[in-house]
């Protein structure tokens, strides 16, 4: 296993997340896709952290921070989605176009 394989895995996962954000209509699915992107970041951070042999383990610790913050982010995101769902009975982001132009 070389670091390149992790890099490629991360890049693929990240692209998958971006793709999901662009094509999924359900707000929850968009949220999940963003989580996928963050997971890709974590893979990268941990892989580079190990590769560099950093005694401070910066990469690993950074990944922990990302996971924590991502949890908070999901909490708030789901709350907003629920709010939208209550007001409109739908979580389809394509119906959110009251404000445009």
């Amino acid at each position, binding site marked *: 296993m070389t670091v390149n394989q992790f890099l490629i895995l991360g890049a693929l996962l990240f692209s998958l997340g971006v793709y999901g954000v662009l094509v999924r209509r359900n707000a929850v699915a*968009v949220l999940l896709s963003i989580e996928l992107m963050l997971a890709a*970041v974590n893979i990268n951070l941990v892989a580079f952290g190990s590769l560099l042999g950093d005694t401070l383990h910066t990469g690993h610790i950074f990944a922990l921070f990302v996971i924590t913050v991502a949890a*908070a982010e999901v909490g708030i*995101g789901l709350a907003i989605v629920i709010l939208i769902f209550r007001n409109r009975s739908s979580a389809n982001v394509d119906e959110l176009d009251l*404000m445009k132009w």
Partner: protein
Amino acid sequence: MNGSLTFLSVAPEIALAAAVVLLLLVEVTFKPRAWAWAVVAGAGLAAGTALSAWQWVAHRGADTGTFWNGMIAVDGFAALAGLLVFPLAGLGLMSAWRLAASQGRRGAEFIALVLLAAAGAHLMAAAADFIMLFIGLEVFSLSLYVLAGFTRERVDADEASLKYFLLGAFASAVFLYGVALVFAATGSTTFYGDGGIADYLAGTVIFRPGVLLAGLALLLVGLAFKVSAAPFHVWAPDVYQGAPGGVTGFLAAAAKVAGFAALARVLTAVLGARADDWVPAVAVLAAASVVVGTLLAIVQDDVKRLLAYSSVAHAGFILTALVAGRGGVGDMWFYLATYAVQVLGAFTVAAAVSGDRAGRSPLAHWAGLGRRAPWLAAAMTLMLLAMAGIPLTAGFAGKVAVFRAAIDAGYLWLVIVAVLATVAGLFFYLRVIVAMYLASPEEGASLPASPAVGWGARFVLAVAAAATLVFGIAPWPLLEVLRDALPL
């Protein structure tokens, strides 16, 4: 100093966080009247401002000191950000006071979120490590996502909130990926010190800088999104228009200050060695922002949306200062500080005219404001003239300063584009002024005889007007002072 764990270095954040905890505890325990919230919030912000002032006095002009294992920077730059962000949060709270008070018990949450956003914004400016920068960014952004949708029952605001959240989270993920790549290329996430990114970039010749450069690009995307620079500005008009009137001012002002503080430190202090790579990109972003913002503002019929596009153009003007690298940071601060006050003032008037819960503020609401509420109209006129860059307002002095910085950096073409946009921009600022003074309200339109303005909003407008005029007529003392606010 590098490893020292002194709490004084993060004292402003601690003060704000303590105020938030205290506020929520007091709220849950005693269910006090609204003035008690004001006391706690005011104490927290005052403490934060005072601590920043102390840091400013002690550290201005000196080398950046880092604490907590190179996590937190203490320097003039961070102190100045505190001196700007905390009073701005105070003014934002005053401007939104009626909105907060009208939310019943949730008002305390509203105030807590503003304080958290302020703490996050300061952390973004004081971060000396990408981990800290990321945490500051998220604390700041998450608070704003919630604030944008604070009036839960209004679908406009919900939509603004979700759009802001989804796109913001998306941009954060892109930013993080950039950080991961920079970490891969340099082996560090710390900015300063031995083995820090700045040190590594200055001392190492990188033969295959692809990973680093890709990281730079994605970093830039994430931060450009926060400051709403084109083409990453798409969220701003929808969010500014949909967010409750009372919130938009703080949202617009704080997002600019925090985003540019982070951008300035990362670009000039950390990536200064790669300036040849990022300066042209920033110049193009600046040009795109002024052009797109101006062109789209011209065709808007809603004042809040118009101000949103104008804020895209202003992001471009501020980026213009950054093409000069470190030499332009003082000018950037000047423009940023004066613009933040102007935009807060303008949205405060918008909240008074169209209601502080309402999202939209169509031009029809503004017809004849000059007669219905002469002082409001006068304040708005001054803010608009300042944003348009009319001489003897702070906006003009700011434009001269950033243009000068860019000319010195050899970016004459950018300045010419920006000047032409400035000229064209007058058209849309003028449209609002014309509506206020020369148009009559439509028949049958139900408008309040004289828009409701609370004392807090009045104070905000007085401060904004005074600052705009004083720094327009005599900007030099401030510009001189801001020289010390460099990230080193």
